[in-house]
């Protein structure tokens, strides 16, 4: 199991070259991806070229945290000269000529891009079953989903098909798949990492982040990508993450105030999941944290608020897919028919559902009742967290009500699928940060995630707490047994 920091260690010591490391990953990908379907595009040639460049830079004495490290990128992020599909038929053959800012920063640091990862179409979903290119399978049990929408990213990290993977989190799309695949996934505060080049789903909620094997890697990846981008008006200056501070942190949590939201342990939770999360919270307490209950009274409103605001923004964001400038075009008898048939054929069912929901919520006569009202309740949800953080430093909670569910088990009823995100949505609506870290397994050996939530731009502390948890447990070191493992 190769973390980013371990890979750098081996590269620095010349135990392996970037080219060798990349080749090893590519071989593993070609062996295991046909079953897992984590990768949509494997960029052998480009990756090896990047690896050769990285080796050359190392030969010149450069030693930076991502140089020569093989990573992969969720297919909603634009990558120069590499196909970028957003998991959609409407972009099946789309190749941008430019990088998303987060991608560009990693490229400049000498990371190696192995390829593009599967996801729910336009990041809309919680299981990666909405991908137009088939679902990704959970490495822990390939009859089950990896979660979504960054399912390909979580599965690739869990199956060692890359050292780390970029993902995006709009309502839980990094945290939930991380939880279902037994890896670490940090959702940054909104505005911390540039969204330029991220194919937009919900503009006021989308965040770019990474799925990694541990908190230390999460810190390294965040440090590499974060910070104000003049091309994104919603990105802000930040105090950079101090990765070294993680190593220097004590293994005690004395002085830390941890809040447990009473509303997050309701019925509908799989009993094993509730149990593992409570045990994890007990562990925090045993490390010296002061644990107490907090209340986030509007938690149950997160779902309806999210499913008005996100689709509304998405309905406008996806209007650019009209077959005129790029992507699929299905020619109709006239231009209007072409628009309708292109979009009818190019978008999957969930995407169409959300576009229509959003269009409805914004349409004349409904705007105040739905969109404005949802934004007002969003303010209340945000205030809930602000009030809680007046009393505690970190909130500990479950990530998902269940472990990985079987493929096809929730696809009939959209609302059933939406409920998968009930614990992650409020964090997104408030724009604050939250990490999912492995905290145990259910009776079937499926991973359970613990969510550590921090206030806006409070990633440093969240990462430190996660790191300490991982220094004192070994859940994150467990690996799935994979079929066809070479």
């Amino acid at each position, binding site marked *: 199991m190769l973390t980013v920091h371990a890979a750098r260690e081996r590269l620095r010591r010349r135990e392996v070259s970037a080219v060798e490391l990349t080749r090893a990953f590519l071989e593993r990908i070609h062996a295991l991806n046909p079953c897992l379907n984590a990768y949509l595009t494997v960029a052998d040639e480009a990756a090896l070229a990047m690896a050769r460049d990285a080796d050359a830079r190392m030969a010149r004495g450069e030693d930076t945290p991502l140089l020569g490290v093989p990573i992969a990128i969720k297919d909603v*992020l*634009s990558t120069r000269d590499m196909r970028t599909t957003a998991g959609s038929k409407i*972009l099946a053959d789309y190749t941008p000529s430019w990088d998303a800012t987060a991608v560009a920063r990693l490229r400049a640091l000498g990371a190696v891009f192995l390829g593009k990862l599967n996801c729910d179409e336009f990041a809309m979903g919680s299981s990666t079953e909405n991908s137009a290119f088939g679902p990704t399978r959970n490495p822990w049990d390939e009859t089950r989903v990896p979660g979504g929408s960054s399912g390909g990213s979580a599965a690739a990290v869990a199956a060692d098909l890359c050292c780390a993977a970029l993902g995006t989190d709009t309502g839980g799309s990094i945290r939930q798949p991380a939880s279902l695949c037994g890896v670490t996934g940090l959702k940054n505060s909104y505005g911390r990492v540039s969204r330029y080049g991220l194919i937009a789903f919900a503009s006021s909620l989308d965040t770019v982040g990474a799925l990694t094997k541990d908190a230390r890697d999460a810190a390294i990846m965040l440090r590499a990508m974060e910070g104000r981008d003049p091309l994104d008006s919603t990105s802000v200056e930040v105090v950079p993450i101090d990765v070294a501070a993680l190593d220097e942190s004590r293994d005690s949590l004395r002085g830390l105030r941890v809040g447990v939201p009473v509303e997050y342990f309701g019925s509908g939770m799989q009993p094993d999941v509730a149990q593992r999360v409570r045990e994890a919270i007990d562990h925090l307490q045993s490390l010296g944290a002061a644990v107490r209950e907090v209340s986030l009274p509007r938690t149950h409103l997160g779902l309806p608020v999210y499913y008005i605001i996100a689709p509304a923004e998405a*309905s406008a964001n996806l209007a650019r897919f009209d077959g005129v400038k790029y992507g699929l075009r299905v020619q109709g008898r006239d231009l209007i028919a072409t628009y309708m048939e292109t979009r009818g054929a190019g978008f999957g069912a969930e995407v169409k559902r959300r576009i229509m929901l959003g269009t409805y919520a*914004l349409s004349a006569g409904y705007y105040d009742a739905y969109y404005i009202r949802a934004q007002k309740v969003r303010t209340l949800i945000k205030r809930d967290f602000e009030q809680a953080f007046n009393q505690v430093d970190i909130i500990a909670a479950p990530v998902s009500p269940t472990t990985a569910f079987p493929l096809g088990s929730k696809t009939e009823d959209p609302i059933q699928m939406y409920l998968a995100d009930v614990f992650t949505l409020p964090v997104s609506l408030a724009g604050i940060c939250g990490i999912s870290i492995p905290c145990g397994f259910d009776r079937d050996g499926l991973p359970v995630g613990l969510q550590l939530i921090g206030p806006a731009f409070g990633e440093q502390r969240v990462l430190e707490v996660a790191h300490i948890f991982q220094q004192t447990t070994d859940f994150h070191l467990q690996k799935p047994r994979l079929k066809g493992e070479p």
Partner: protein
Amino acid sequence: MEYEVVIGMETHVELDTHSKMFCACSARFFGAEPNVNVCPVCLGMPGALPVINRRAVEFAMMVGLALNCQIARHTFWERKSYWYPDLPKGYQISQYQRPLAYDGWLDVDVRDLSTGNWSEESVRRRIRIRRAHLEEDTGKLTHVGDKSYVDYNRSGVPLLEIVTEPDIRSADEAYAYLSALQQLVRYLGVSTGDMEKGAMRCEPNMSLRPKGSAGFGVKVEIKNLNSLRAVRDAIAYEIRRQTALLERGEAVQQVTMGWDESRGVTVVQREKESAHDYRYFPEPDLPPLEIDDAWLEDVRRRVPELALARQDRYRRDFGLSAYDAVQLTSDRAIADWFEQVIAAAPAGDLRARAKAAANWIQTEVFRLMKANAIPNAEIASIKPQPQQLAELIGLVEQQVINLNTARQVFEEMFATGAAPRAIVEAKGLAQVSDVDALRQVVAEVIAAHPSQVQQYRSGQEKVFGFLVGQVMKATKGKGNAQVINRLLREALKP
């Protein structure tokens, strides 16, 4: 039944920034090859995000201030959704609820244009401005056969949309308003205002109602107007068309009309379907704008005195005619130059000084600029400086040279940039004002032309000019005309 027309004007002004409204592509699209000033943002590519161009906001603030508007201190952007190939994102970033500027007005002098002649008389009308807001322009579609070709060079260029209250009451008024608005944006240097190049696009909304009544009739929108003249002609045509309909007892249909310039008629473009559902909502990719006192004052300082205010001032303080005032304020550069001439002139009668400057600019300066293909707006680039024209005017006033000579001197100034006094001295052009010397010449001319003298003394005034000419000739054109006149009249007394 007499009808009156009620017109509201919607104008889109393209702002003359270097770069576009939400990205750093060049905003200079006119004449460029298609799709060469484009980037992911103005192409609406997946993942692209807008960033506000500060200068576009400031240009818009300047127009708002010049239009006496309130400037919004807290404003934000909205997405306006509709479907068209020239709109790459499928929505336009615009402003709906909180326009940058609102509740202003523009005073205009309305002249009767029907005779085709200039009218000194005018009526001053105040046209209220409901709002002015910023948005981005769309790309351009060219139709050839059964295909359309899309060019996104223009996509994202900053646009200021200015909407009036329905205060306009005639085609002439519409013309005056648009003319003044065009002049205003040029004075501010924020737009070329060039309708032929699409930098200013006008859509009148008009209806007829029984004269003196309060309500509004059925509204018709007119598009495809490519000049101020077309606006006036199209409105006049529509008034006639609608009046004829109403007089026959028929109803006016609520439609959009396009102006057909070649045939001089309006043509139905589109039945006005039910109002578009633009589904406006706040643009989540752009934080709101806050305009504080410091910024507002900084921009306010950049708004110069505008044309109408200067015209009023010239007429009041300098006694200029309406015609002269309008001519001299036609371009801000001209007006500024004119005022510099006055400021530099030697002390004396302000009105006389101004009148002289006005004459010189409208005759010799304009003539030479035109002959050298220098546009009015570039008057500051001519070789003579305003102070130098003032100096020249002074020389004529002091009778050092006469007007004819002065014209020659000015031609030399225009060509070489040399100072007037230097030219006069170098060429020995100082006029002969010496009374004794001139009396001598007068006597010689009288002696040499006895029959003309006889004719004059018997009452033929016309001959006087001939005799003056002869004296002038004898002095090689340098004679002081006033002195010659006086001496000749004296000498011719029987």
